[in-house]
């Protein structure tokens, strides 16, 4: 679905990404992992068109995205969900969701999707008329994911959905992400929480200093000794039991 080949990008003259190759097959959950300042968010911004591509190519669903503007990329069906703090605090929950549906013209479908999202996240329904600035961190995260879904995307890119949230909330969010992928939406999840992301995703890429350092099936990555050393520490078993429960 998404093919990224030899992507170089950065801010102004500063080059952050140096030759990224990544591919996301249709209907799967793929994880992009790495610590702070390794280029995760830069890659997402480049894919979304917020940053210009210096070199390489990005192909999505048969279309070349290299020179496209962000709003054209959204119309193509590729939607990025930014980090959790970024809702529109001065708008109500419902208005936030409606901003997400801006690219669509089918009023009926929008209304249906709104109901669907309220089913996914019942807490949003109870707070639909309140300003989103008053929501808790976890609720805001649900809201921004819901807002991304309102665009009826073929693929969703999630930027650190677990950032600054309590473990229990993270678990809830991740199980929702799994449910979303079951409805046929392809997902690229960018995470620092390596353990959780690998439990969710089928395939993982580990990025460091602007290059893909390691890639492989999630099971292999979890047991990879270098991954264990640099990211995990401790056992994976505990959380996996929790997640299945």
């Amino acid at each position, binding site marked *: 679905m998404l093919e990224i080949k030899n992507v170089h990008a950065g801010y102004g003259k500063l080059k952050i990404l140096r030759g990224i190759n990544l591919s996301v097959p249709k209907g799967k959950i793929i994880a992009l992992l790495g610590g702070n300042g390794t280029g995760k968010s830069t890659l997402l911004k480049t894919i979304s068109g917020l940053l210009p591509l210096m070199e390489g190519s990005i192909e999505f669903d048969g279309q070349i995205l290299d020179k496209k503007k962000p709003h054209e990329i959204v119309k193509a069906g590729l939607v990025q969900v930014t980090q959790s703090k970024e809702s529109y605090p001065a708008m109500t929950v419902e208005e936030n969701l409606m*901003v997400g549906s*801006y690219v669509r013209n089918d009023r009926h479908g929008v209304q249906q999707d709104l109901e669907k999202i309220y089913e996914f996240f019942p807490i949003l329904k109870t707070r639909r008329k309140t300003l989103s600035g008053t929501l808790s961190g976890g609720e805001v995260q649900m809201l921004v994911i819901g807002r991304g879904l309102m665009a009826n995307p073929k693929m969703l890119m999630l930027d650190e959905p677990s950032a600054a949230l309590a473990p229990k909330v993270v678990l809830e969010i991740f199980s929702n992400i799994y449910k979303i992928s079951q409805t046929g939406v392809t997902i690229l999840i960018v995470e620092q929480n390596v353990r959780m992301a690998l439990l969710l995703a089928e395939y993982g890429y580990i990025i460091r200093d602007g290059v893909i350092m390691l890639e492989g099936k999630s099971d292999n990555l979890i047991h990879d000794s270098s991954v264990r050393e640099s990211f995990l520490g401790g056992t994976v078993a505990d959380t996996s039991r929790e997640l299945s429960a």
Partner: protein
Amino acid sequence: MEFDFNSLFAFIIFGVTIGVVYGMVALGISLIYSGLDIVHFAHGEIYMFGAFFGLVMAKDMSIPYPAALIGAMILAGLMGMLIERVFYRRLTRSGGGYTVAGMGMIICGFGMSVALMNVAFLIWGADAKPFSINLGMPLQISNISIPQSYLLTAVVSFALMGLLHFFLKYTKIGLAVRAVAQNKDIAYLMGINVPVFISLIFGLACALAAAAGVFRANAVGPGGDGLSDADESLRRSSCWRIRQSPRSTAGRNPGWHI
């Protein structure tokens, strides 16, 4: 001495009318401020240009007054969009607000203000031009007489503000305008074409200023005529108005608080 309730009532009506006109200019300034994070220092000049557009159309081209008003709004709106596209776009691209680039924006605004003022001076001269329209006899309510132009000003201004409020609050495009005002990156990621919307915001704000300019020009003073000393009074009031304009920061609804 007996208290003169009639005068009080008249003053309130005139005050509200003039206040509403200034409110429209302030609304424009705050729209731009919340939309682009810049204080538009040349807004007073757009207001003056709007008045002159209306004057030229109503007097020299003898277009009926309502059509001249709408024409002035459209012209000033287009002028604002052109100015934004040609001059401000380069600066806002590198960030506005309280950054170094925002400082550049302020200087650019002042420069634009001086430039526009002198363009107006070259075209129309510095003399005051009367802008009198004949709307019939003043309205008599008990002992007070209210000029028709005041009534028209108040009604149309409130209607315009109401329209803007409705537009921002209840339409899809209005929602997108608010989204752009609050966070441009996210608006972009939601598929909103941000540059087009910034043009729209500028156009709206300048059209409001033009409407205010036309109203102020023919309603100044209870006598109801005379754009007295166009440059001077408008220039002076432009600074005052900026201080008066509501501080709608990025986090607030960019409209409807005067």
